[in-house]
């Protein structure tokens, strides 16, 4: 597995046009986040971001996670699901959450495996999701501490915030290990084989290098 430098140019296209795959990823992320709203830290956005980085790359690294988050944040705020956070606090925390998901997508792009429809590829995706999820949680916990919990009345230390974060990160890791293989399998199939048809399927593509 080679580490690749970041470029705004998407990867070589697969069997499905990148914009269609991006739309499907965004739809899956939005729908999944809304359905799982009441399960803290069980969310599909991390998986969607990683897969966008691995399969699409380039500007999709920013576009896909930000579109999922903007779409769901606007909708949930309008529906009154967003809890006690004010718009200013949402913007403050949002900066960390959004950039955290973009970072996850960039990690997906940098460490993407060879895109063959194999168990090994899905296993590599799942493996990469572990450090990506931990980095995301560290980054957003720091954001929470900086924006909210170091101020009165909490006055919590960063150490206390990180300590309280541990069970949530364990659940977030489990969430990534659920959604990355599921979404990874579906979207990798689309990327390498295209839409399912009745006829014989072609072999997978190997587009490990940029176009």
């Amino acid at each position, binding site marked *: 597995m080679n580490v690749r430098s970041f470029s705004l140019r998407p990867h070589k296209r697969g069997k499905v046009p990148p914009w269609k795959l991006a739309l499907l990823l965004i739809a899956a992320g939005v729908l999944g986040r809304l359905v799982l709203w*009441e399960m803290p830290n069980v969310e599909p956005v991390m998986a969607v971001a990683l897969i966008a980085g691995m399969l699409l790359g380039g500007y999709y690294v920013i576009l896909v996670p930000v579109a999922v988050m903007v779409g769901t944040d606007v909708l949930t705020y309008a529906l009154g699901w967003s809890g006690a*956070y*004010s718009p200013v606090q949402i913007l403050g925390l949002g900066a960390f959450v959004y950039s955290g998901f973009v970072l996850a997508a960039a990690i997906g792009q940098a460490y993407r495996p060879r895109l063959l429809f194999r*168990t090994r590829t899905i296993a590599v995706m799942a493996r990469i999701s572990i450090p990506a999820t931990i980095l995301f949680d560290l980054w957003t916990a720091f954001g929470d501490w900086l924006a909210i919990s170091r101020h009165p009345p909490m006055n919590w230390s960063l150490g*206390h915030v990180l300590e309280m974060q541990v069970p949530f990160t*364990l*659940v977030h890791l489990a969430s990534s290990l659920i959604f990355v293989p599921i979404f990874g399998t579906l979207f990798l199939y689309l990327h390498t084989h295209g839409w399912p048809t009745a006829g014989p399927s072609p072999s997978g593509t190997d587009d490990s290098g940029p176009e």
Partner: protein
Amino acid sequence: MPGDAWSRWRAFAFFAVLLVAIAVLFAGASALYRVPPAAVVHDVHLRVEGPGWTIEYRADTTPNSTAYAILAEAADRLGFVLDARRYVAPLDSVLVESINGTRNGEDGLWWLYWVDGAYGDVGADRKALHDGSEALWAFREYPPREASP
């Protein structure tokens, strides 16, 4: 071993490892985010500060030894309405949505709690009370400006 059988075996092994890892992570989270052990506490005082009204409640002896349980006990004994939402396991916890007809979000204010002067750092059903504890539920903006109400 033929290639197809080897591939199937690898796929099976991968998903078995994945399932075990997910189960261990969920179990670990549940163990770390635990409900305080059941306890009987004495001389607990509860104060609920709504917009323009206050409820006071005192329990000499009670098995309801969390910030949420004592509020539910007071609602039951004094006859005011308490409405709460429960989040799903493994990080299940309650979010109090309405007390005595005052609902979260009205005028940008929210139901928040303190125990013994300390702002709640876990779900209210996870915050233990002790003998002589003072629990406060107050309808405030989030995060509350004052250090201790």
